[in-house]
Structures are given as structure tokens and as C-alpha cells.
């Protein structure tokens, strides 16, 4: 039971980060290779505020998230005006720089030995509620005017601009939203494991999250959630394969990417209407499975 709970908690914390990445990648087509660095900022900032300053946990979370958003704004400012893939370059460099600085600031962060002595505050119900609230927020965002403008940008940035959408502004809002979500997952993570070290937040972690979003279908929030469950659960389920585990994992992801390039669910979402149409199969596919091609640049 304890094992299940551990897996569930870590999966849910990862899910929050992946939902953050979904916001960015799934909705606008931008992707960040330094997203984990924002998780690091969230984790270290909240951890330091609680242990060194003695701040209450909720307040520390708010401050840490605000701080990450501030940093995200600095990174986003020059990059949102550029072509979409530049944000991945900028964030990659940013992520590596954050790791190096965390290693350097030994007095504050413990350096490479890691940050020990964070109290264990995060509990399973807390993570569960956070996840539900954040997913709800993202779902609402997706269905708002903002969300539709994002889809427009994802499909064709130039055309979106021509339609009078303020592209840099929308990109910035989405980027900061996703940064905030990821930073919050960092707060939860730090107070769950009670130990963090800089090597946890490298670009590979950010890449893993992007893979999860694509595995589930880059246009579907439900897909991202499902992919997180499968891809964080899978390595645990595959423990019996020992050294072959990562090979199997990689092969599975490659299979999906190659043979179902739109991801598991493409753009299908778990809404009451779509569930209904699953059971009453009609030829009308407009609501459930748009036959649109996977997103093109």
C-alpha cells in the first residue's frame, strides 16, 4: 500500500509538471528544454524560505511560484518574439545555467551534495487536490478565448498574426502560466522527497515531459494525463526487466511516435459528449476524433 501511495504521489507531481508542459507544447507548439529548471527554482526557493526564513509552507509556495514567474518573464521576453523553436534553445541554456548556479551556491543550497532537511509536508490528499485544481484550471484555459487563440498560433502563427491576434503576448501568457504550474510542482516535490539536488533538474527531465505530452497526443489534455500515468508507471512495472528496462521504454515510445504519430488520443478529450459518442458509434466524427493531420509547423 505504501508503495502504491508513493508511486501515485510521484506520478501526480509529475502530472502537474506535464500539464504545465502541455500548456506550452500542446497548446502553442512552443517547447521548453529548461522547464525542469523552473521546477528547481520552485523547489529550492520554497525549501529555503521554509527552512531558513521560517515562512509558512503555503506562503513559501506562493513566493516561490511568483519568483519563477519573474524569472520566466526575463527568459520569455527576448524569446517570444522569435520563431517558436528558439524558446527551446533559450530554455535549454537557462536550465544548464540554473544547475551550475545551484552547484556553485554551496552555502545556500548545499551544492552538489543536495539540499537536505526540508520538512515532509506534502501529503497525498494535498497532491491529489492540487492536481485536480490545476487540471481544471488548464481545461478552462483551453476552452477560453485564450485557448482558442493558442490553437490558432499553433496551427499557423503567421495567419494568427494576420487575424489580429497579439502573438507575443499570448505566447508570453502561456509560457508564464506553464512556468507557474511547473514551479508549483517543484514546491510539492521538495516537501515530498525532503531532499533535492541539482542533477535532478537537467534537460533530460524536461525532454521526458515533452515526450509524455507527445505520447498522449499533443492536442489532448486527457492524453497528457494518460501518458503521464503510463510512462511514469511503466518503468516501475518493468522493474523485472532490470537492465533492459530503458531499452523497452524507448522502444515503446518510438513505436507510438512512428505508428501513431498523433499520440494515443490525438486531440480527443474526456468530455461527457465525447464519452457518449464513444458508446453510440456514429459516422459523425467531428466531435470525437477530428481527422486533422498532426500539427504542422
Amino acid at each position, binding site marked *: 500500500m505504501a508503495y502504491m501511495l508513493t508511486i501515485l504521489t510521484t506520478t501526480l507531481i509529475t502530472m502537474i509538471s506535464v500539464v504545465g508542459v502541455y500548456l506550452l*507544447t500542446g497548446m502553442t*507548439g512552443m*517547447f521548453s528544454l529548461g522547464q525542469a529548471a523552473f521546477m528547481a527554482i520552485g523547489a529550492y526557493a520554497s525549501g529555503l524560505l521554509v527552512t531558513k526564513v521560517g515562512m509558512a509552507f503555503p506562503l513559501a509556495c506562493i513566493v516561490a511560484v511568483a519568483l519563477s514567474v519573474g524569472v520566466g518573464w526575463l*527568459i520569455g521576453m*527576448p*524569446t517570444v518574439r*522569435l*520563431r517558436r*523553436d*528558439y524558446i*527551446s*534553445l*533559450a530554455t*535549454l*541554456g*537557462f536550465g*544548464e*545555467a540554473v*544547475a*551550475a*548556479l545551484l*552547484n*556553485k551556491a554551496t552555502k545556500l543550497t548545499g551544492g552538489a551534495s543536495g539540499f537536505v532537511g526540508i520538512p515532509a509536508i506534502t501529503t497525498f490528499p494535498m497532491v491529489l487536490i492540487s492536481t485536480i485544481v490545476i487540471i481544471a484550471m488548464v481545461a478552462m484555459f483551453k476552452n477560453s478565448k485564450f485557448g482558442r487563440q493558442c490553437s490558432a498560433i499553433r496551427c*499557423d*502563427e*503567421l*495567419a494568427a498574426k494576420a487575424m489580429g491576434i497579439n502573438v507575443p503576448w499570448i505566447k508570453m501568457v502561456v509560457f508564464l502560466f506553464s512556468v507557474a504550474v511547473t514551479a508549483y510542482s517543484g514546491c510539492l516535490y521538495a516537501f515530498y522527497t525532503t531532499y533535492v539536488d541539482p542533477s535532478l533538474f537537467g*534537460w533530460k527531465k524536461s*525532454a521526458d515531459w*515533452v*515526450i509524455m505530452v*507527445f505520447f498522449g497526443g*499533443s492536442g489532448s489534455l486527457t492524453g497528457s494525463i494518460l501518458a503521464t500515468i503510463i510512462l511514469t508507471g511503466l518503468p516501475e512495472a518493468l522493474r523485472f526487466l532490470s*537492465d*533492459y528496462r*530503458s*531499452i523497452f*521504454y*524507448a*522502444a515503446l*515510445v*518510438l513505436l507510438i*511516435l*512512428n*505508428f501513431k*504519430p498523433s499520440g494515443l488520443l490525438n486531440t480527443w478529450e474526456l468530455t461527457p459528449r465525447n464519452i457518449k459518442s464513444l458508446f453510440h458509434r456514429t459516422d459523425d466524427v467531428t466531435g470525437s476524433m477530428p481527422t486533422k*493531420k*498532426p*500539427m*504542422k*509547423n
Partner: protein
Amino acid sequence: MSLQIIINGLALGSVYALIATGFALIFNVLKFSNFAHGAMMTCGAFVGYFLAAGKGFGLFPTILISMIAGGVIGIGGEFIAFKRIIANHSSHIYFFVSSITLGTLLEGIVTLKVGANFYNYPRFFKVATINIGNIIISKSDAMMFCFSTMALLLLWYIIRYTKQGRAIRSVSFDRDTASLMGINVESVILITFFVSGALAGLAGVFLGINYTLYPTLGSLVVKGFIASVIGGLGSLPGAIIGAVFLGLLETLLIHTVGSGYAPALTFSVMLIFLLVRPQGISGSNIQEKA
């Protein structure tokens, strides 16, 4: 002393250049960053190691066979991870995701085979350094520099003056139009992967000779990536200039501010480049086509 730093920087830059060129070649044609390149280098390095240490091959046969092996791995990678994505005309992000996964796959296989030990290439040179006055040049660094220059010149010649090279350039410019002009796009892409893989094999052998072999050697690919960003994504001369620039910058920063802050400052330089000159030092043909 400053001349010594420049030489160290050049040596480091030539390593980065080899990595960055293979990287840039793929970007040039398919417009994506191939993160599996690092794992391909590791594979090439281990192939070379087993030839040199196990079978007693000399330097040149080792390099040659590793390059061919690297090329074959490149084609294999294309077949496993990219073929269908290319056929689907999917977005660049799919390539990116696929390449990272391919990298994990290759790295996993290498770890499985050789994970428990470190490996070193046999010594190819008796005296390891050349001293000119106060300046010390490591022989393998000099070799590396010469070989990368030669390989890059050869590549430049192929791309510039041969028929295949022209085909590669036209495909990189516009895949659909090139195909309409009667170019067999598929085979051009295969050739590109072969050449890029061969460069990865070459880089791998050099990394092996200069450094120690272990399964995650390929993580060095991030440096090649940063170099090609500074130089201008997709541009071959840009990648080389960017790599040398990065090598010099890093050694200079290490010398002046120490290693701890060097990554942060390198990043700042990259960000400045993105701000002031997003196309990099020499990139020009990467404007977004709507």
C-alpha cells in the same frame, strides 16, 4: 600564457566542431536538432575501441571502419525513428522527441553491453606533446584538429561541388520542390544520415582517443548543440565558427571567472545572440516559411 589558452580553446573548439557539424548537417536538411547524435558518437567510439583494442587495428583502419559503422547506425536510426515521421510531414517537434528517444535506446544498448567498466583506447602516439617554446600542444589535440579540418573540408567539397551535394542542398532548401525536380528525396535523406553518422563515428573515435570511454559519453552533444545555435542553426560554416568560438569562450571564462560561473555566462552569451542576431553568426536561410 594567453597564447596557451587560445590553443587550449582551439583544441576544445575542434572537438565541438566535429560534434556540431554532424548535428548541423541533419538540421540543414530536415530542420531539427538530432539529439541522438551523442549516442551515435558513443556507439562509434565503442566500435572503434573494440577494433583497436580487441582486434589490434591501427589508427587509420579504426577511424575508417568506425566512420562506416557510424554511418550505418545513422541509417538504421533513420529507419527506426525518422522514416515514418518524414513520410508523414510531421512537425519538427516530432523529430526532436523521436531523436531523444532514439538516443535513450542506443545509450541503453551500449550500457547493457559495456556498462560495468571504463575503457581507454590503446596509445597511438609515443610522445604525447609537441613543445614550441613555452607553448605545449598535445599531439592528439593536434591530430584531432587536423582531422576535423580535413573531414570538414571534404564535407564542404562534397556539398559544394558534387551532384549529391547539390541534391542535399536543394532538399534542404525545399523538400517538395526538390522532389518535383526529379531528386530522389528519400535517398538524399539517407545519404545525409549516413554522412552525419560517419561524422559521429569520427567524433566518437576522437573522443575515445582523447578522453575515456563510458556509456554516457554522448552527453557532450549539448555543447555541439549550443555551438550550432551560436553559429546559426543549420549552417555548416556557422556550426564550425560557433564551435570554435564556444571552445575559446569556455576556456577564457574558465581562466577568468572559474568553471562554476562559466555555464551561466556561456548561456548569457547565447541569449545575447538570440536577442541581437537570432540567425546566429552566419545563418541566413532559416527564416520561418509560413
